[in-house]
């Protein structure tokens, strides 16, 4: 049990490449922090520096009150769960789980007790005599976790532990891991590229891009108040729709937003709660709106009468509980900076947008329909800096 602190941690390679740059994070005792970001953003490197598997080029790392930059991994009192499990194949499950205790000189009797305890938490009692080669992927992952929890370390480090499991198993293990962490109360760093894991498991989530921390906040806050375009686009699935738009005053009074050649009314509260926005009238901005704030106008014909887009349906995905509808709008697209994001639908002149419609929608591919957009839920970002306004 311990607090952890990263103070401007950085990793620079010989060729000058900065994998991690000025990363500062403060973890409370027992906190579950998720480091999330696209592939290659430096999150695994950061985790490995905390573990001691990579040298720290810049900055300081603290566990409790101790600065541990120069300590070997075994002296740091951390336990790690690897993406590929890294189980010792020549040893049984019992020996794998008990290995850290054996190295530290614990007596066989006490070791066995701890192994039994870990095995019962992780439902591995039947597997204790087997070797890793005889286990399924999910079982191997649990053995890896058992090996980590048996030591009662100060920190848990988890490097994308669920990414090699199939989808259904992943959902179950997410809950299991979160539950175990809550019961044991061990401070945990969890690295993943899956933003759903980040949102469901973390007390706080740190979004990382190109080695730089973008925002760290509880999941709900990241979702509702992203600090910049990258976080806005990265968190949430399907992604937030982003395009260029211009805010202006209507001749009859009131505010409107122009998205391409379409214009929608904007409630006064939007401007009132964002003082900085008033100074940006008539300037092109980055505008974001989440798919769930779009709806098929045919399903709610009396709502949001002046907040409508006229669009042609390009793709339709029926998910059962809802229907995702993709359509281009005539506003300039915005590159969120996510290397894994797909190219814009319809080329460089229009933006690809996604709406989460109720399953009862009758919209079909090729239909020209009206879509309501709840403009009170708009997000605004500066076009140059991509920072939230």
């Amino acid at each position, binding site marked *: 049990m311990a607090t952890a602190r990263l103070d401007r941690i950085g990793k620079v390679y010989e060729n000058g490449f900065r994998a991690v740059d000025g990363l500062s994070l403060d973890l409370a005792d027992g906190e579950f922090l998720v480091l999330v970001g696209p592939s290659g953003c430096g999150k695994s490197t950061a985790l490995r520096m905390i*573990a*001691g*598997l990579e040298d720290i080029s810049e900055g300081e790392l603290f566990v409790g009150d101790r600065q541990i930059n120069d300590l*070997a*991994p*075994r002296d740091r009192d*951390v*336990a*790690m769960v*690897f*993406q*590929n*499990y*890294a*189980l*010792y*194949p*020549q040893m049984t499950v019992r020996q794998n789980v008990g*290995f*850290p205790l054996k*190295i*530290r000189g614990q007596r066989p009797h006490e070791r066995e007790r701890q192994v039994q305890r870990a095995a019962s938490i992780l439902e591995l009692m039947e597997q204790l005599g087997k*070797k*890793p*080669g*005889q*286990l399924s*992927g999910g079982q*191997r992952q649990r053995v890896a976790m058992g*090996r980590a929890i048996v030591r009662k370390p100060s920190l848990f480090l988890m490097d994308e532990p669920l990414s*090699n499991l199939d989808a259904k198993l992943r959902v179950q293990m997410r809950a299991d891991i979160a539950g175990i962490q809550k019961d044991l109360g061990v401070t945990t760093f969890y690295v993943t590229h899956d933003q759903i894991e980040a949102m469901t498991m973390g007390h706080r989530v740190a979004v990382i891009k190109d080695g730089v921390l973008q925002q760290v906040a509880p999941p709900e806050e990241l979702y509702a108040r992203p600090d910049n375009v990258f976080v806005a686009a990265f968190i949430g699935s399907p992604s937030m729709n982003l395009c260029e738009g211009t805010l202006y005053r209507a001749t009859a009074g009131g505010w409107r937003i122009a998205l391409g050649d379409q214009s929608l009314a904007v409630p006064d509260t939007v401007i009132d709660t964002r003082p900085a926005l008033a100074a940006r009238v008539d300037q092109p901005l980055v505008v974001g709106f989440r798919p769930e704030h779009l709806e098929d106008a045919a399903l709610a014909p009396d709502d949001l009468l002046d907040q409508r887009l006229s669009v042609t349906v390009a793709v339709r995905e029926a998910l059962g509980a809802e229907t995702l509808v993709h359509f281009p709008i005539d506003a300039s697209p915005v590159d969120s900076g996510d290397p894994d994001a797909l190219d814009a639908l319809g080329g460089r002149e229009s933006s690809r947008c996604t709406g989460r419609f109720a399953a009862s929608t009758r919209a079909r591919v090729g239909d020209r329909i009206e879509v309501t957009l709840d403009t009170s839920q708009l997000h605004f970002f500066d076009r140059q800096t991509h920072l939230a306004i």
Partner: protein
Amino acid sequence: MSKPSAAIGGAHPLFYPLLLVACAIVLLPVFWMLSTALKDETELFRDPLLLWPEKPTLAAFRSVFEDYPFAAYIRNSLVVVVCATAISLTFSTLAGYGLSRFRFGGRGAFLAFLLLSQMFPSVMLIIPYFKILKSAGLLDSRLGLIVTYVSFTIPFCTWMMYGYFRSIPVELDEAAAIDGCGSVRTFFTVILPLALPGMVATAVYAFITGWNEYLFALILTNSEEQKTLPVGIGQLIGQYRIEWNELMAASIYSTIPLMVFFLFLQRYLISSLTAGAVKS
């Protein structure tokens, strides 16, 4: 591995007969060796040649030991080759691990050098080796041969072990480091047991290379007490005549340790040892 009968309908009807024919072709020289060794002198040159002696006799097997210091040859070969194999194996394993896990200046050059050194035809090296051993006082000695054979096998053995260690995931070292092991303990407790199949293959290679080596043993030894088996057998090819039956008997003797060695070790050649370590 899938068996030929795993294909639709079962094995091709010619598969097993062809296999039998191939086995027969491969084993024919061995069979001939045995049948020749069991013949007495009158039956060796019979016309037409006998496939199997009418009066098989073990006389050749006995006279090999009586007429020559054959026991000494066997002893010398065993001592030299076992020692050379053990030394080669130890150092090539340690070097292979170091090369696969650590980065250091000159590593690439060293690896290239290991391979390039294999390109020298060994005949070129006889005179230099002779001179070096002579000035070190190691001519006509088992120690001299051990040193020589180690110099032959270590480069390739190191390459073999290097390649084998590369197939053992580095995550295992990392997990061991986090679990509390230092470098030495990681190597001996976690990695070495997984390297056993590679070590066996390397040992077999080193053993066979040393066991069959003729040229350098011939040049670097001259007293009967120091000669190795290949040299001893070579002496059976005399200037005027060849004692075929004794030659064949001696050859059979010399293959027995190899077979024993291989039979004993083949159960360690388990390639599936690392299954389940990491997600493949």
